[in-house]
């Protein structure tokens, strides 16, 4: 169950994360990755457009510069004079000689000054040269250029530059210092209206200057992996920012090829290191036969890094939540199942005869009551069983002794009787003679026995001594027959005295004449009433003994000297897996467990040798079907007169379940002893009965079981008094949890969380506490509160400071636009519009962030706020928009008065009702219902609408900062912070807010606030 829940929860978290990352394209939700990618595309496009515009403008300005300079009259004059001078110089003259001639000419010197002034003044030209068109010689050069007089006639560029119509030729040259050259024709008009080529002017520029001039800005926008690259027609890099060493012959990466052929756009590509990049590429026309590629790129790994980090944090959080849920589910499951399992185990043990078994006590509740009742019931049954067992054991022991003593007594009595009979045969035995069944002689003892006076019996028939005529006939016949056959007769007879009482007597006699049994006979009579009574008692005793031995659960056996069973009661037979009859004659040691057998035999031999009469021994028995039982034997050895053992009688108790219980008890004890949480049992007076190791460690006191020391020694006097109060207030079976500070022996106060219970065991009231060290948890909570406070302050200050530069940006862009209104082209206006829009949006974001950070930072103390008045206030300025869209709002019940800040409550209603208006459905007229009720000490206010609704997966997201479900311009715009502020307001006041909604079925925002907050708890 817990696992299934955990898995479902895990799947839900992963699904949520998947949606957050990859979006739901079907409903237009792009997901964080796509959103990030789109933002990067937008940023790269803007930067590429800006860079292209920058390069194009730079080039345009340079072309304008060169056009102006090449039209300078000093340059034309120098060319004309130089042309004349060169015509006079032989073609094979050295460059130095030509230079010497030229540098002596005033017009050349004037042109040189002009060109140098231009170069140093503009500071954009690497060099400027003036060439004679025909000879290709350098006429004038700035110091950084070629030397005067140098012959460039073989330069391929020159041929193109001389061509008619090629007023301007632009070429570039890569390398460590990429150079751009603009060559312009200098002409003079001809009489026929045409133009004659005088010379060429070459202007050279360092390409890197323009690319790297804004490198720091680029780095700010593009991050660590971003780059701006200018490439030639074949994709080789001409310049790049940030600058890097270009390896000769290095392969051209795919992203550098994107603009080749005159393409512009944005694409996912591959960078120099083979890494995925997002690149915006542009093509810059330089000349009809030349163009540059511009690539602005950023590694995907960098711009997706925030998303990846967020995903990682989310997965980590999901894992933690999952772990916590599983742990919680496990704990709850264990809290439910553990008592039931304990109850079941205890019931099974009781069923097996272990009446010491008890279910583990649990917290109060239905299970607690059940466990209590069960334990009480077992207690009673155990006591009854124990009493019965003890009774049987005592009785058996008594009977065994009684029987033995009686047997001895009777033996002794018999011996005495025999001796008496011998004596009576002389004097003390009734002696008489009969003839034809008539008493002829009687001694006095007989007369006494029968209760007659001396001589009274003489002449009387023997019939007088019989109780009944029937007995008289029966015995007379029997005696006659015996006398007839054996010549003598003897028997035990029940006789009647004169007074009618009866007694048993033994008579023995023989005829004086064996041939005449009916003649004179002599008889002896002995009163055997006492013997008869003893015999009856013995028989009855044996019967009772047998019933007890057979009826008890105790194992009872008797074994002869050879170790064979003489007697086995039913309980013993069950242990051996046979019937009592089957056991008889079998060797007792055959039923001893093989592992214990030798030890047991040896022990018996030793005990017999030592002559021990009573032995206690425990061993394992094994039945014929292999079942093992633990038995605790009490054995009595019966020795013969010669000191040799005659037999062994034994009683045993099955201790199998007891041993299991002892094992369980030891395990439980070990667990509690070594538990991480401190456990302590105390008497009602808080004297320690038990404390585990953790309690000792926490208190710094060495404790032992049943220590008996007072609680104060463990936690200090003051806390002990506090705990005493807690226990005094607790009823038996109750549990409470509280936080406390203890001052143990080592003196350093420790904050602990205490779970205290009062229970009753064996009629005694006991107090139990579990307590754990919560110092780390407390410190973490305090640190969190501190961090949150600092963060709020930081956001507040940062938001304030950020708005000022933004206001300046908007202000100066507006000024620029006004001043340059006539000079701005469409693109520039569009770019400036982007700047203003972006600044305004950022201002809105910061403003909302400021608002968000302000929420909950009110300096005025909270007080009663009438929500009805707050609602009315909001409606004064929302009624217009509501009526504009044809909507209606209904207040279903009067709104309550709550504790808080009036401004916050107005903002709350403004955001919630404003959202209902913004996100109304185009298919139906807007209807808003505001209602309030109360439950569980909270006011509950709901604002329902019939708008477009919200998908279930966004119910949490909409309350986060800057989270919007729609495009920025849709539904009246907004920054997505309104609901985050609502949540902060409500939670700050001790309530909560949630939304119930389905797409297309409207939404109901419900917030709760406490009905009454004590003054000292007001924030």
């Amino acid at each position, binding site marked *: 169950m817990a696992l299934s829940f955990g898995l479902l929860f895990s799947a839900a978290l992963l699904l949520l994360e998947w949606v957050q990352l990859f979006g739901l394209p079907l409903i237009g939700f792009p997901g964080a990755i796509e959103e990030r*990618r*789109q933002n990067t*595309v*937008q940023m790269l*496009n803007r930067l590429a457009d800006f860079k292209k515009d920058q390069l194009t403008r730079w080039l*345009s300005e340079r*072309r304008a510069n060169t056009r102006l300079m090449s039209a300078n009259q000093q340059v034309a004059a120098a060319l004309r004079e130089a042309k004349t001078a060169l015509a006079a110089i032989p073609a094979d003259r050295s460059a130095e000689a030509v230079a010497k001639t030229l540098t002596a000419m005033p017009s050349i010197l004037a042109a040189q000054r002009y060109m140098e002034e231009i170069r140093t003044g503009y500071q954009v030209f690497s060099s400027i040269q003036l060439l004679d068109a025909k000879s290709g010689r350098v006429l004038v050069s700035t110091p950084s250029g070629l030397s005067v007089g140098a012959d460039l006639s073989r330069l391929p560029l020159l041929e*193109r530059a001389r*061509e*008619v*119509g*090629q*007023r*301007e*030729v*632009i070429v570039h040259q890569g390398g460590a210092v990429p150079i751009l050259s603009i060559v312009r024709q200098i002409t003079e008009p*001809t009489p*026929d*209206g*045409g*133009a004659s080529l005088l010379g060429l002017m070459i202007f050279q520029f360092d390409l890197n200057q323009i690319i790297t001039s804004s490198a720091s800005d680029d780095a700010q926008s593009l991050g660590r992996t971003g780059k701006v690259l200018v490439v030639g*027609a074949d994709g080789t890099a001409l310049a790049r920012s940030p600058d890097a060493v270009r390896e000769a012959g290095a392969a051209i990466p795919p992203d550098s090829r*994107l603009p080749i*052929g*005159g*393409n*512009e*756009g*944005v*694409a*996912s590509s591959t960078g120099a290191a083979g890494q995925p990049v997002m690149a915006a590429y*542009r*093509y810059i*026309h*330089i*000349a*009809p*036969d*030349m*163009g540059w590629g511009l690539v602005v790129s950023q590694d995907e790994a960098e711009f997706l890094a925030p998303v990846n980090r967020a995903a990682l944090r989310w997965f980590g959080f999901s894992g933690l939540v999952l772990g916590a849920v599983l742990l919680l589910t496990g704990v709850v499951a264990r809290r439910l199942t553990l008592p039931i399992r304990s109850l079941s185990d205890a019931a099974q043990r009781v069923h097996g005869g272990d009446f010491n078994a008890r279910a583990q006590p649990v917290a109060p509740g239905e299970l607690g009551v059940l466990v209590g009742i069960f334990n009480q019931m077992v207690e009673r049954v155990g006591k009854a069983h124990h009493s019965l067992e003890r009774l049987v054991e005592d009785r058996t022991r008594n009977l065994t002794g009684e029987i033995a003593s009686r047997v001895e007594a009777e033996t002794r009595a018999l011996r005495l009787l025999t001796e008496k009979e011998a004596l009576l045969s002389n004097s003390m035995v009734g002696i008489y003679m009969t003839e034809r069944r008539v008493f002829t002689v009687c001694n006095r003892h007989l007369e006494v026995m029968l209760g007659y006076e001396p001589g009274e019996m003489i002449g009387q028939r023997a019939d007088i001594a019989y109780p009944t005529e029937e007995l008289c006939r029966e015995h007379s016949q029997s005696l006659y027959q015996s006398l007839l056959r054996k010549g003598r007769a003897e028997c035990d007879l029940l006789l009647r005295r004169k007074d009618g009482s009866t007694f048993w007597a033994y008579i023995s006699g023989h005829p004086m004449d064996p041939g005449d049994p009916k003649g004179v006979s002599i008889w002896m009579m002995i009163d055997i009433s006492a013997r008869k009574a003893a015999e009856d008692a013995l028989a009855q005793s044996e019967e009772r003994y047998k019933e007890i031995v057979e009826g008890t659960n105790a194992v009872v056996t008797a074994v002869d000297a050879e170790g064979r069973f003489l007697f086995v009661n039913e309980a013993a037979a069950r242990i051996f897996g046979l019937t009592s009859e089957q056991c008889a004659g079998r060797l007792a040691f055959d039923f001893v467990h093989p592992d214990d057998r030798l030890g047991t035999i040896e022990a018996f031999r030793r005990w017999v040798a030592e002559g021990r009469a009573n032995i206690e021994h425990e061993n394992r028995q094994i039945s014929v079907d292999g079942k093992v039982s633990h038995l605790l034997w009490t054995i009595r050895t019966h020795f013969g007169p010669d000191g040799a053992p005659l037999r062994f009688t034994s009683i045993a108790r099955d201790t199998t379940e007891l041993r299991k219980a002892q094992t369980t008890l030891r395990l439980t004890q070990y667990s509690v002893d070594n538990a991480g949480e401190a456990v302590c049992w105390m008497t009602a007076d808080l004297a320690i009965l038990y404390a585990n190791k953790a309690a000792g460690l926490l208190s710094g006191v060495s404790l032992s079981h049943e220590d008996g020391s007072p609680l104060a020694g463990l936690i200090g006097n003051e806390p002990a008094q506090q705990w005493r109060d807690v226990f005094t207030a607790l009823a038996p079976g109750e549990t409470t949890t509280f936080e406390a500070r203890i001052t143990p022996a080592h003196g350093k106060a420790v904050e602990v969380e205490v779970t205290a219970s009062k229970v009753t065991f064996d009629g005694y009231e006991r107090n139990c506490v579990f307590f754990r060290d919560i110092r780390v948890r407390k410190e973490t909570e305090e640190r969190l509160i501190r961090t949150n406070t600092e963060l709020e302050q930081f956001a507040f200050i940062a938001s304030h400071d950020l708005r000022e530069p933004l206001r300046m940006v908007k202000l100066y862009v507006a000024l620029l636009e006004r001043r340059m209104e006539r000079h701005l*082209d*469409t*693109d520039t206006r*569009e770019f400036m519009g982007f700047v203003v*829009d972006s600044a305004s949006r950022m201002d809105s974001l910061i403003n909302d962030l400021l608002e968000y950070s302000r929420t909950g930072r009110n300096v005025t103390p909270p007080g009663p706020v009438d929500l009805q008045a707050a609602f009315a206030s909001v409606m004064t300025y929302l009624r217009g928009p509501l009526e504009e869209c044809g909507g209606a709002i209904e207040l279903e019940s009067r709104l309550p008065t709550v504790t808080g800040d009036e401004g916050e409550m107005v903002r709350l209603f403004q955001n919630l009702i404003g959202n209902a208006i913004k996100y109304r459905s185009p298919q139906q007229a807007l209807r808003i219902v505001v209602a309030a009720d109360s439950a569980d000490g909270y006011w509950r206010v709901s604002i329902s609408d019939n708008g477009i609704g919200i998908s279930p997966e966004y119910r949490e997201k909409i309350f986060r900062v800057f989270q919007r479900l729609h495009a920025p311009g849709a539904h009246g715009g907004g920054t997505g912070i309104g609901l985050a502020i609502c949540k902060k307001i409500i939670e700050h006041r001790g309530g909560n807010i949630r939304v119930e909604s389905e797409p297309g079925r409207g939404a109901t925002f419900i917030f709760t606030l406490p009905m009454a907050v004590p003054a000292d708890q007001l924030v």
Partner: protein
Amino acid sequence: MSGHPFVRAALAATVFWAMAPEARALDPGYAATYAYDTTGAGLDLGVQPLGYPSGMFSSIMARDQTLRHALERLGLGLRLHPYLKGFDMIDLVDGARLEGALLGDMPTILTAVANEVAIIGMVKQTFSSVVAREFGQIGELKGKRIGNAAGSSAHHALLRGLRSAGLSEMDVTLVAVDVGDMPAALAAGTIDAFAAWEPAPSIALRGGSQFKVIYRGVSTDYFVLARSFLLRHPEAAREVIASFVRALNWMGSSREALLQSCEWAMADGTAFIGKPQNTTAEQAAAIVRREILEVASAPVIPRRGAGGQEMLESEFLFLRELGKIPADTQWSRVAASFSRDLLLEVLEKPGRYRLAGFDYSPTVSSAAPR
């Protein structure tokens, strides 16, 4: 062989039928009533009033009194025929119906393949753009409806863009839309994107920030003359070229001249399609400056080998690979059409051809009869 009329007709038909199906379905009714001179005394030029700055050239040339007088002296009359796009003129520039035309790069190639023509000068150098609603990359166009002018330079730019994203025409739905209607169609949502040349992209972008240029491909317009006309009337051809250069010079001479040329072009465009242009003269002027006035050495066509014609050659190869041009057609056929000399001859004699003498009438003096 390739000069035989039958062969030329066959090539033209092949090129036409190889183009997108929607092009074949489009009824060029607007051009069906055009009357071309068949007597040999007329000079019929095909122009595109809705394309900038091509439209400015044609509007200025239509008002160029210097040209009119020069041609009259040569016994020729100039007549300008407006077309929506260059593709509609491909098989007409044969010297019999149209003697010349201002065409984009793709129609120029197709015309050079289909007919014997001379490419004499560059009219513009700019980009054709793919404008989309809400998309960021061209790869996202898969399965979308794209407004297209079949056979145009913008069509070529679109094909190249799709190729760069690993797509082809088969992956999108091409919808035939007149270039002037594309911004409105995009705003109305009947298409998801369109490929066009200026001013359509600029107009669309002004419709809102949701419209974005997601791809641009370099495109160039050329002035093309039928080779047969050159052979018959070389001086008239020079005069036409001179008028073309003069127009460029005039637009670059002053802001007023540039704005005037833009207003004329807009008026001609309005007269052609019957509805006003959705742009201002200032905006049109910005386009002209960017696409021709600021192009160094324009209108001279670069020589082969300096990187100038290679771009057109790669476009030719691309179209051939896509089957838009018969597979056995060689680049040399198009390369041979480049004729720089005529322009250089004119430039060498600026006085003779009055390249800096501007005489334009406010009204069109060279409208074609209908």
